[in-house]
């Protein structure tokens, strides 16, 4: 997956928005930058399919050896799929945070939060400033 069409949240989630049967579906994952910073991943808690999530609120957790971090929903909607293969292949996130590294798909019910997301250039600039 090219990162060109992805949007990024301040909290390091990536989002790919696609139209399907008139609905907007957001595929969500964690940025390669965040994966690298977390390092040594040991646990991922996926959101439950069917769960209603609100942009900016925690909908999953990821643990490294050192710490546990929330994964925040970048958009508001309903979780329609979760990547159940991922918790047993956390190492794969280091090679591929985007294609097979997706965490959940959310059917967007309110797209107002999309305006808060950054493009890749904006996200990279934010990461550079944080470093």
């Amino acid at each position, binding site marked *: 997956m090219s990162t060109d069409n992805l949007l990024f949240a301040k909290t390091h989630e990536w989002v790919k928005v696609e139209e399907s049967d008139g609905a907007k579906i957001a595929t969500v994952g964690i940025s390669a930058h965040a994966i690298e910073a977390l*390092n040594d991943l040991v*646990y991922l808690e996926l959101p439950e399919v069917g769960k209603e999530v609100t942009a900016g609120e925690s909908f999953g957790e990821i*643990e490294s*050896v*050192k710490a546990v971090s929330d994964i925040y929903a970048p958009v508001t909607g309903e979780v329609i799929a979760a990547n159940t293969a991922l918790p047993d292949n956390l190492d794969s996130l280091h090679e591929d945070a985007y294609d097979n590294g997706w965490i959940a798909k959310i059917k967007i019910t309110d797209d107002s939060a999309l305006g808060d997301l950054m493009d890749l250039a904006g996200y990279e600039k934010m990461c550079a400033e944080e470093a």
Partner: protein
Amino acid sequence: MTTEILKKTPLHDWHAANGGRMVDFTGWSMPVQYKSIIDEHNATRNAVGLFDVSHMARFRFDGDSALAFIDRLVTRKVADLKPGRIRYGLVCKEDGGILDDVLTYHLQDSSGASYVWMVVNAGNREKIAAWIEQHLPEEVTFTDHTEETAMIAVQGPQAISIAQRFIEGDISDLKYYQGREATILSHSGIVSRTGYTGEDGVELTVPAESAIAIWEALHVAASEIGGHAVGLGARDTLRLEAAMPLYGHELSEEITPIQAGLGFALSWDHDFIGKKALEAIDQDTLPVRVGLVMQDRRVPREHYLLFSEGEQVGEVTSGSQSPTLGSPIAMAYVAPQFAEEDTPLEVDVRGKRHPAKVVPLPFYKRK
């Protein structure tokens, strides 16, 4: 953000230039990891790890009664410590609470004169220095050598052979918890067979200005056999697996040595500060330190609460994924009736209960 200026060890610039992720550790800028905590951990278990432990406080005591003075200060008898020997002990308050855990060394300089060396936790340096000053007799001289020296721990099955390459004289006769002055890469220092990883190894105390050269020589030699520089992250997972307590986690002023399972560090046949209180405390009802292994994949962490049948029965003091065991482990304090091996407990991980089991300590013992 902190506006406090962090102290730097003599190896700080090497860490920063070699990928060390620098963090504030009790006022010192220290590497938490270089690339991977798990890789650094495994390198130490399988080959050799190099640790900058220069932030730990190093004190020296001179005078004929120096050892007798320290004997009153620490729970473990050290008055009979022969030259070249090192002992682990605790510094307690009058009420028996733990001020710090320390190593006492009885050393001799090149002229054969005896002195006492003490290694103290970085975060307790000022507190212990003040405690010492408060009790110091006139005839004992107390000096702090922390900043004019560096301390490098070389740990792992290959540690002795790697360190030996840079130390004059054979160190194979140096037994566990023995130490002496030595020439290290032509600099005067101290070598001791001590560490905080559960592995064999030595700790080298060297002049600050020689630290980079000695570290780099060790690092080149270590890298050739799969060794690594190791940050505080893996230092923590290594000591956790070895069930070594860490001050501020398993040890504090509110915990007694008996609760911590450190009864071996109390010598009742000598007088020390806190002895009377420790003799009087009924220890039978106080929480005790135990090991936990999680029964699923959630990682228990400091301050997570422990439950049994809905009742809160304890608290986690240190926890991590164990790289060696491949499962999450913790040390915790629990009410004594829940300390029995195989007792099932539940850990509250961010609002959800996860099953754990009490296991004997340590989690890891080298073969």
